[in-house]
């Protein structure tokens, strides 16, 4: 911390370990296969030798003298009685044997070839070139050398080496022992190694045959003591025990001249154990198992895959200073805030460095003890720990608070509890985009859950049906500054995906603003005050005085949330039906939103104005007045919405879908007539009167006709139903304002559910030639193929219910399949693109310095700042220009 500059690792060099190096870095030569003696003390020169580190408190490392937390462990080694091959390098060993002469061990290439290939290879730097490229060059060279049957150097006739998987080599049926292989590899001159893609400065081929085996530090393979006092060793230790045991037996057998057969068997056994020690999933050999029958988790398994070291521990790390709990909504919080339960706030701490400027403040803080409250019983932050410059931590308790407050001095650090206004990171998994983790300001609340404004549900994709979220406390000033500038919720209002707002009012907010502004209703003074009491307004809107009483218009009330100087004009959702013609002919003043100087003059505020993704007002405010104003607008708008709804009340229920008797009858009539028409179609088909559509068979033509028929009925019934359900109906209000559901859903409840489908066609599976045994085989009528003529409200009959479930199941399966597939695609995308960055000239480069784009996105524009992908909003600029001129 003194210099302020942190050191960086320059590079990491990979190499093969030579036997000498293994011995050199070893602190102990392990010779006994035992671990602990009867007293539970590590046996010397055993697998738990104290030279390899300590895992038990109280003991000290015999190598470095460190205690449990201080010693990072040291390697030991085992001398193998006979050499064995390393499984990971089998392929390479094979190429070496194939491409070199068995007599003179030179590569089987003529001098001319050697020179020409050498010229090619000398330009390649092994440590930095793409291994695939090196591989393709060396493959060519070794293939050519392997094909030669006579050594061009010594003229010896070559025998073909066959690899008997996984680890045995045979030459004309006779086994080549690892010892012989090693001898051959030893003789290969350094100069020939380039042809095999071996970097002679870091690797020798004979090192791929093991004579000494490193024993990993005890920290790597700690033993666990169960509650029963029984000791359970790590899988690696078990494997090492096997290796040492067999190695010893092999050594004894060899030394006392046992028959060759026994030695070979033991040698193979040793090879098996060493092989499974590296990789317990080697093809061709059964995995080594624990006594319980569980396969052992050895070196390769430890590294590999999702739960392996790389992906589980290195690419993602566990952290302290974090919390996780259930989330719930809190409309009175700003979008920039998060409510943290007191209980969590007492545990989560922020380190505060004590300086001469804050030492008095901190002293006062410590004096209050670990659970202070103010005079109203409200939470205030206390101090949990005091950290001395030497790293010792002192826990603050009520008893020692007074005393400790006097001890601190500049240079010490205290861990202060969470305080209102602290910046924290808040996250919900799956973290699919950067808006899944945003910075919030802390508000300490009672209760047990995290709480936040509903407008922030969209970026997190959160709801409150039991979702949990994570909170991380920032520990460094630098990080805090970055979080505040970059990660704050208000900074993330605009999505980089499409250049529009991703934070906006949802559900009730939209319903409320819709009701508030549609037809511009009138409110009494009292009502208005109630609503506005939810919003911190500067002044009341202009009243309308009728009969001496003050009234306020809905649009004027909504306008209090808008910043002054805002000018917008756009079509509302109510009138979004493409062709420019509003679907429901209404007063133009209801459908076109006009905001002049922060006053809503015409239009209905709905999803297109304040919703996420589409919210045009949020978009405009953000562009014109910045994130602060946009956040403020969302805060006020959501609060006003809640205030309004709490006054007006809003509910929906089954009675929303009540339609008059004659409507029900009409729907029944049209569904009956549809069924009849389908019958007719089938009849026509059966008597071959149907005309096939171009490029389709008769069956398909029939299906298409029927499908279009059922589609028509559904739409018709929807029309009938919605004719009776107007904007006085809560469900219709929600659908039309874009708050929740579509008109289609309403017609399903009130009118008819319609045709069920699987894979885009009518349901056509189940029994032989029929969907359910209630139908005759070969019946392809409407009912037998999943046409549901009931509505959800009237209820489905059992057959309909079954067929509806079939259609519903497809959706569920689809979601399950989709999430996993898209998850993997995103992982690959992220992995492939994570290193790209824009340089000072707006070029896109990767880490090697290759230029991917000469100008990012061909125009160098940030999609987040673009107008939904467009460079500039010319009309807006012209408007600003003219505005400036008139001033």
């Amino acid at each position, binding site marked *: 911390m003194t210099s302020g500059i942190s050191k960086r690792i320059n590079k990491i060099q990979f190499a093969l370990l030579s036997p000498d190096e293994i011995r050199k870095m070893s602190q102990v030569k392990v010779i006994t296969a035992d671990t602990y003696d009867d007293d539970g003390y590590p046996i010397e020169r055993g697998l738990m030798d104290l030279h390899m580190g300590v895992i038990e408190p109280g003991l000290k490392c015999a190598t470095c003298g460190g205690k449990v937390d201080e010693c990072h462990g040291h390697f030991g080694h085992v001398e193998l009685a006979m050499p064995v091959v390393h499984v990971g390098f089998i392929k390479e060993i094979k190429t070496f044997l194939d491409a070199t002469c068995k007599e003179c061990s030179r590569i089987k290439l003529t001098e001319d070839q050697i020179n020409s290939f050498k010229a090619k290879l000398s330009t390649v730097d092994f440590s930095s070139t793409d291994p695939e490229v090196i591989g393709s060059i060396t493959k060519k060279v070794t293939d050519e050398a392997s094909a030669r049957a006579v050594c061009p150097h010594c003229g010896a006739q070559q025998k073909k080496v066959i690899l008997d998987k996984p680890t045995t080599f045979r030459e004309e049926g006779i086994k080549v022992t690892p010892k012989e292989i090693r001898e051959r590899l030893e003789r290969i001159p350094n100069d020939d190694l380039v042809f095999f893609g071996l970097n002679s400065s870091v690797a020798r081929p004979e090192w791929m045959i093991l004579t000494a085996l490193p024993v990993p530090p005890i920290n790597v393979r700690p033993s666990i003591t169960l509650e029963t006092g029984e000791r359970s060793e790590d899988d690696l230790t078990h494997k090492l025990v096997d290796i040492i045991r067999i190695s010893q037996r092999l050594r004894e057998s060899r030394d006392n001249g046992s028959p060759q057969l026994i030695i070979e068997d033991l040698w193979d056994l040793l090879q098996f154990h060493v092989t499974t020690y590296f990789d317990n999933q080697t093809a061709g050999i059964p995995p080594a198992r624990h006594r319980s029958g569980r396969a052992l988790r050895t070196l390769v398994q430890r590294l590999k895959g999702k739960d392996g070291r790389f992906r589980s521990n290195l690419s993602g790390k566990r952290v302290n200073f974090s919390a996780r709990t259930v989330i719930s909504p809190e409309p009175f919080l700003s979008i920039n805030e998060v409510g943290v339960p007191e209980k969590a706030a007492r545990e989560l701490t922020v380190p505060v460095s004590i300086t001469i400027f804050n030492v008095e403040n901190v002293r006062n803080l410590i004096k209050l003890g670990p659970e202070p409250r103010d005079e109203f019983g409200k939470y205030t932050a206390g101090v949990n720990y005091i950290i001395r410059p030497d790293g010792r931590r002192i826990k603050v308790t009520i008893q020692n608070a007074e005393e400790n407050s006097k001890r601190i001095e500049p240079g010490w650090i205290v861990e202060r509890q969470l305080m209102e206004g602290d910046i924290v990171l808040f996250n919900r998994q799956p973290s699919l985009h950067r808006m899944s983790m945003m910075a919030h300001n802390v508000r300490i609340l009672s209760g047990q859950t995290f709480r936040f404004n509903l407008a922030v549900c969209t970026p997190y994709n959160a709801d409150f049906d039991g979702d949990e979220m994570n909170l991380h406390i920032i520990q460094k000033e630098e990080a805090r500054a970055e979080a505040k500038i970059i990660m704050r919720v208000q900074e993330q209002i605009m999505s980089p995906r499409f250049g529009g707002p991703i934070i906006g009012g949802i559900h009730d907010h939209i319903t409320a603003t819709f009701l508030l502004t549609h037809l511009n209703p009138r409110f009494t003074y009292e009502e208005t005050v109630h609503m506005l009491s939810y919003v911190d307004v500067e002044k009341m809107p202009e009243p309308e005085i009728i009969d001496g009483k003050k009234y306020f218009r809905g649009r004027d009330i909504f306008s209090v949330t808008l910043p002054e100087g805002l000018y917008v004009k756009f079509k509302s959702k109510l009138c979004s039906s493409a062709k420019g013609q509003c679907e429901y002919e209404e007063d133009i003043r209801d459908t076109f939103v006009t905001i002049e100087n922060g006053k809503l003059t015409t239009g209905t505020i709905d999803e297109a104005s304040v919703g996420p993704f589409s919210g045009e007002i949020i978009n405009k405010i953000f562009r014109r007045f910045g994130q602060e104003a946009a956040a403020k607008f969302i805060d006020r708008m959501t609060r006003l919405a809640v205030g309004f709804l709490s006054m007006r009340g809003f509910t929906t229920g089954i009675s929303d879908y009540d339609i008059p008797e004659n409507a029900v009858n009409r729907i029944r009539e049209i569904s009956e007539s549809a069924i009849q028409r389908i019958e007719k179609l089938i009849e026509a088909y059966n008597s071959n009167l149907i005309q096939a559509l171009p490029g389709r068979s008769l069956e398909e033509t029939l299906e298409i006709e029927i499908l279009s028929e059922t589609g028509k009925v559904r739409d018709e019934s929807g029309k009938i139903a919605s004719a009776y359900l107007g904007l006085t109906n809560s469900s219709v209000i929600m659908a039309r304002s874009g708050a929740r559901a579509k008109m289609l859903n309403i017609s399903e409840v009130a009118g008819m559910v319609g045709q069920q489908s699987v894979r885009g066609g009518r349901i056509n599976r189940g029994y032989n030639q029929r969907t359910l045994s209630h139908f005759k085989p070969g019946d392809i009528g409407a009912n037998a193929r999943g046409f549901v003529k009931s509505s959800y409200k009237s209820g489905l009959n059992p057959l309909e219910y079954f067929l509806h479930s079939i259609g519903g199941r497809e959706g569920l399966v689809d979601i399950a399949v989709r999430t996993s597939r898209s998850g993997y695609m995103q992982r690959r995308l992220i992995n492939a693109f994570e290193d790209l960055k824009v340089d*000072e000239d707006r070029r896109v480069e990767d880490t090697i310095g290759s230029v991917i784009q000469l100008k990012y996105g061909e125009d160098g524009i940030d999609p987040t700042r673009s107008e939904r992908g467009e460079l500039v909003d010319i009309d807006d600029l012209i408007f600003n220009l003219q505005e400036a001129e008139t001033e």
Partner: protein
Amino acid sequence: MKAIVWKDTKKNIDMLLKKHQVKYAVDFAPSNAKIEKGYISTDGINFQFEVAIGSVSPFKDDADVLKKKTGLISVLTLEELRPVNRHISDFRFNGKKIAKLTGFMEGEIKELDLVPSATIEEKIDPEVRKVLADAKKMSFDMPLSIAVKIAAKRAEIGEKSYKKLIKLVQEDLVRKAIDPYEAVGIIAAQSIGEPGTQMTMRTFHFAGVREMNVTLGLPRLIEIVDARRIPSTPSMTIYLRKDLEKSEEVARRVVKEIENTTVLDVADVITDVNDLTVSIKLDKAKMEERLVEFSDVSFAVEKVRQVNITPDEKTRTIVLKPQQESFKKLYQVQEQVKVLTIKGLTGIKRAIARKESQDGPYVIYTQGSNLRMVMDIEEVDPYRITTNDIIEISNVLGIEAARNAIYNESERTLQEQGLEVDRRHLMLVADMMSFTGSVRAVGRTGISGRKSSVLARAAFEITTKHLLRAGLLGETDSLTGVAENIIVGQPITLGTGSVNLVYRGNRKSD
């Protein structure tokens, strides 16, 4: 332009190269048309040399003539041999493509109508060009799309505002520029990956035909990103030349020409075990539908080896009798005949011409793709046809076309699903997949597998392979990327991590 094409030996070419003028005696009589050029091939497919033909005269025994053989008819005077690179498909013989080069042939060179296209500047509306020039005066390269908009508004806003507007646009663009060191790759990946969960997985029928499915939604997006060799539903959209595009007849003809027709499509194949014959009984209706002539079939059948063929045009039957009398052979012949291609292009299983609107042009949709061959068809507009097979585009048209194909296909897929994703993200994906010159997949076989960092590769997939190989090669990891720095626990090199800032506090002055 007419030209003579022939295949020649390397030896003769060497001779030709050495001399300036050569008289060349050939067993071939050129037509009367003026012939100025000749093309020489060594392999019968690619033409390596172009030669000017000075004159053609009837053959007379002359000592100064190269190439002596029997049956010589005329003498060509060849001048000025120079290397070219032409493909056999550039030539036409009696209006048809030359399938195989047999001796000397007279061919029409299909000249690419290289009308000098207007330069980009010329294409721009003069009003817009003025705007661009004005912006240039303020040392600002205005993007064209903005200039167009400004030009349209210029009269409306007046000259004074116009100048200010340009300034304003310039300022606006600077403000909207991407921040240096921004991790654009991650943003692009997230922007494409995040909506993936909202996509459907169904395939859709297309162009109203059962066999013509097109993969859409998430599976298609994955396919694009994977850079699959062959997409699961390859298909082409073929436009006809502007002057022919409204003709139903032409459209139908092209459809028949490209649609791969096998014997089974137009005939029944009957195997007579008694006589040991295979007979092809042609169905007239089917033949008419597919525009197949009897002679087409009998010509195609000739490809079957070691059989005696007896065609009978009246009964529309062709009987094949294997020369070798065995059931095994009979079976082989039967199987071979069934799948024998009569006409059409390989790979195109089905083609359908449709009118997009009432008076609109005909557009041909196909199942299966064969870009190279379809492009060569006379009636087809080679500038407008597309295929959804990105790798094929890369092979036929090159990497730039493939890059655009990746972009177009991914954008279309997302748009079809109603998902809004900024085009810059898709461009970055397309560029990243293609900038090395070949299409690379997103994943361990492509981009991720070729990363420079060992640790990054190990952390992605196939961990052990990369670690072991790193040891042999003595690879060094210079820790420049994101994944490897996370692994060793250092700040990453993107965004704020790529800037070093040192605060030197005020020194206490004593």
